[in-house]
């Protein structure tokens, strides 16, 4: 297979956010593309981290529909918006390459409310869709593109079998598309020259803070897979001494305690905390904030984001949020802890999408990582800030 490189490959960790001169998009057939992506070891950058080559290979012979997912429904994520602002050509290149390899019946780029429209569309169907926390989940996205509500459907029929227009549907995150375009331009060896042996390449990180001033440069940066958390904080200009904990993976994610900043952003590094590199969301919690107060607000937000279709989620998440709210008050009843455990078991795995499970992951991580603070609350103490809600 010939890979036409019209420019020198970007060196260092800035790849997606480097300047891209553009030029003709190399065309490869499906078999070569699957082979190349397998050798590169590219995984999905939307959160789940599934191998991209296997996603392509899973499509059956029918003409598929290709969907670029730039919904970015997670409030702490900004990477898709920055990518479409900074390097929209790479995302479109990725879609072009797939269009050539898969001969789809439709190619769609789905944009959430905060994501800018690319200046050039190259005949790709660019759709600005209704967004919400769950609207970017694969089945919800397909449902909306089929003219229905932006809510998830039962996953027993996977979208790669039957999705948009009833066709096999390939949904790839915008960043995955851009990474794919770079792999095709510069090759698997180049791709693997950053990151880890079993998790190569770079990824975009959305770096945010719980109070203004914790970071000198909040925003989106690009780093190699496996970068230590401490290095990410340094690049954002954070004083590690002011960081109480780091929320990895957004509101469905898990906490890394402030004493564990040497943890690397890799699957094995994060596994002890129940976290994954996910979609690269890194949110810093300042020393002054009451983690239970923050967690209660997040849980209330998540309860409000239920698509209100599945009974255990619709009923269980508000109950969980209310219990977290009570635990956030110093002098909390110790019976709230077994109640939270009971609720976690009751909602896990009992929904069409991963919203209940993600909420449970967040709550369980909060209780584990901030166990000492929970005990303080049960004894009637809290030396941290509980900012009064401005609006509810």
């Amino acid at each position, binding site marked *: 297979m010939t890979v036409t490189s019209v420019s020198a490959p970007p060196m260092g960790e800035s790849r997606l956010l480097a300047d891209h001169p553009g030029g003709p998009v190399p065309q490869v057939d499906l078999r070569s593309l699957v082979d190349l992506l397998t050798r590169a070891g590219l995984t999905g950058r939307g959160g789940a981290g599934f191998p991209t080559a296997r996603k392509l290979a899973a499509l059956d012979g029918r003409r598929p529909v290709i969907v670029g997912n730039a919904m970015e429904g997670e409030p702490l994520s900004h990477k898709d918006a920055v990518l479409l602002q900074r390097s929209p050509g790479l995302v479109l290149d990725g879609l072009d390459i797939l269009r050539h390899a898969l001969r789809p019946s439709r190619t769609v780029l789905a944009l959430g409310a905060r994501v800018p429209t690319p200046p050039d569309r190259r005949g790709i169907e660019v759709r600005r869709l209704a967004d919400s926390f769950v609207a970017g989940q694969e089945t919800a996205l397909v449902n909306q593109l089929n003219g229905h509500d932006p*809510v998830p*459907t039962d996953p027993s029929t996977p979208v790669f079998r039957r999705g948009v227009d009833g066709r096999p549907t390939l949904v790839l995150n915008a960043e995955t598309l851009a990474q794919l375009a770079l792999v095709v331009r510069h090759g698997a060896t180049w791709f693997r020259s950053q990151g880890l042996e079993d998790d190569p390449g770079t990824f975009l990180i959305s770096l945010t803070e719980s109070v203004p001033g914790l970071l000198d440069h909040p925003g989106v940066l690009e780093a190699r897979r496996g970068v230590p958390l401490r290095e990410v904080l340094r690049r954002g200009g954070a004083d590690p001494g002011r960081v109480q904990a780091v929320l990895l993976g957004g509101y469905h994610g898990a906490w890394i305690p402030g004493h564990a900043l040497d943890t690397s952003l890799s699957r094995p590094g994060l596994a002890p905390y129940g976290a994954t590199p996910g979609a690269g969301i890194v949110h810093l919690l300042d020393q002054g904030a009451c983690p239970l107060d923050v967690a209660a607000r997040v849980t209330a937000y998540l309860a409000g984001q239920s698509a209100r279709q599945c*009974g*255990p*989620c619709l*009923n269980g998440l508000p109950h969980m949020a209310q219990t977290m709210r009570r635990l956030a008050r110093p002098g909390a009843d110790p019976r709230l802890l077994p109640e939270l455990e009971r609720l976690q078991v009751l909602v896990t795995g*009992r929904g*069409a999408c991963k919203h209940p499970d993600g909420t449970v992951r967040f709550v369980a991580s909060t209780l584990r990582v901030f166990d000492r603070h929970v005990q303080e609350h049960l004894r009637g103490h809290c030396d941290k800030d509980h900012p009064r809600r401005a609006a509810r």
Partner: protein
Amino acid sequence: MTTRLHVDWTRCDGHGSCVELLPELLVHDEWGFPLSRTGEPDAVVPRQLDDLARRAVSACPLQALRLRS
């Protein structure tokens, strides 16, 4: 080959006929939705309950129940 009882939660409204037909496998949770006794989200159906499981699937007024192998 194991058969599992799968609930499409987007359809289920807690009508309860499945729990009545399969008390060995299901109970009502506190909101009235079917809860697997085994703790797995999709309960394994033992062979001796095959017929009752099939009846539960056809009895569901919202077609929310499915057998998956």
